[in-house]
């Protein structure tokens, strides 16, 4: 894991892509393209933060990196680097740039398995997820390797893609994709289920367009190769 020249990790704001500061730039971009292409559907639409460490990245290299991401429907938002050249290139391209608080710390964080970071040793063996304690508004995309719980609404135009289950303690009106890597046992729950679109694994369902639907908690799951939605509980 430490030898990875490219590492991709989900963060609060989208994806954090860390690129090796020493490896040849050509091989890095090639490796990055391969890694993204492997999971294109999963990454699509994400906001990206790139960390290049102390590497000085000239403007033309950063431009081609940005284009590489854009061709794959990813948006480069933030560039992290301790190199002044890189920061300058980022500003020239109208990107946000910052120096990682502590590059070493950052590196360690990247290598940390999420399990190791959990401070409480539970007797119950659960699976890992993220809890988002606010409303997701239009344009926001959440990617997660694991489950996603939203304590708030998911508005139209917002999107959640998770490899596990998705639970919305609020109104679901955006697009959510559970079991994004093919897990058909994944479920989607919401207190008020009126999404643009539901996806579980490779299946897609759109909400019936009856206007006055009953507001009650519902759960969506896969049965006989179809997404079914029924009362929750």
């Amino acid at each position: 894991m430490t030898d990875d020249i490219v590492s991709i990790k989900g963060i609060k704001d989208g994806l954090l892509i860390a690129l090796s500061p020493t490896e040849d730039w050509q091989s890095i971009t090639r490796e990055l393209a391969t890694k993204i292409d492997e999971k294109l559907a999963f990454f699509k639409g994400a906001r990206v933060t790139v960390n290049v460490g102390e590497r000085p990245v000239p403007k033309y290299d950063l431009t081609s990196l940005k284009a590489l991401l854009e061709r794959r429907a990813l948006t480069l938002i933030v560039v992290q680097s301790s190199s002044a050249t890189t920061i300058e290139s980022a500003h020239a391209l109208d990107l946000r740039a910052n120096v990682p608080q502590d590059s070493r710390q950052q590196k360690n964080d990247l290598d940390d398995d999420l399990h190791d970071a959990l401070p409480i040793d539970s007797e119950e063996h659960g699976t890992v997820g993220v809890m988002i304690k606010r409303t997701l508004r239009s344009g926001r995309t959440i990617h997660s390797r694991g489950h996603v719980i939203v304590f708030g609404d998911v508005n139209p135009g917002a999107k959640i893609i998770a490899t596990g289950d998705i639970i919305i303690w609020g109104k679901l009106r955006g697009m959510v994709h559970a079991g994004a890597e093919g897990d058909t046992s994944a479920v989607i729950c919401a207190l008020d289920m009126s999404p643009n679109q539901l996806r579980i694994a490779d299946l897609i369902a759109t909400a019936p367009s009856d206007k006055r639907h009953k507001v009650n908690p519902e759960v969506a799951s896969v049965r006989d190769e179809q997404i079914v939605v029924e009362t929750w509980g």
Partner: protein
Amino acid sequence: MGAKVITITSGKGGVGKTTTTANLGVALARLGKKTVVIDADIGLRNLDVVMGLENRIVYDLVDVVEGRCRLRQAMIKHKQFPDLYLIPAAQTRDKTSVSPADMIHITDKLRSDFDFIIIDSPAGIERGFRNAVAPADEVLIVTNPEVSAVRDADRIVGLLEAEHKNPGKLILNRLKPAMVKKGEMLSADDVVDILALEIIGIVPEDDHVIPASNSGIPVTLNENSHAGVAFRNIARRLTGEDVALMDLETNSGFFQRLAKFFGGR
């Protein structure tokens, strides 16, 4: 003590940002507040036209930023209200001629001399939007009672959250109470249900608005216009006055519900 910087934005174009800016500027000046309005829509300026000041422009915002004139030289005094000034946008350049830092710098220079600085944001969520929002103490989001405008407003609130700005307040513009009553238009409740923002004003659709903009005399100066009254009320709320939402008699039920909504907060 210093000016409050208020940015008027929307995401979607054509919902009434410029009309709102011009009317709030005039209405605040009428209340005796020293006010500057700034057109941040560089390349597509029209706040000057709506305020009837187009033929007085000598210097613009980009001239100030690039040091071709002093800030005071770009400020156009309003014909009727000596406490109201306009800083026009450049027509020949684009949004990248100004940076968010420039906007903060300019508003900081104005703060000590004014009560309100109102910035008219361009449509969209790119550089022009970020320029307009950077110096804002408060953001007013203009939207129309239709799904696409509300969707864009929602996106704007999300972006404001990302910039660690206050979520802003809502101006619901061009509402037709009769259509709401028939269920053909989103109601204020429907809009608040999605956006979860406080409404600072509801402006009814009004045939006086377009001729007023064309003639450069903002509609709030027309005593017979409902929209004009609505803008005046918003200005009064901005000064801290407690003004009840206007009663549009055709649908009192829905305004009562709205009043309840505010009471419950």
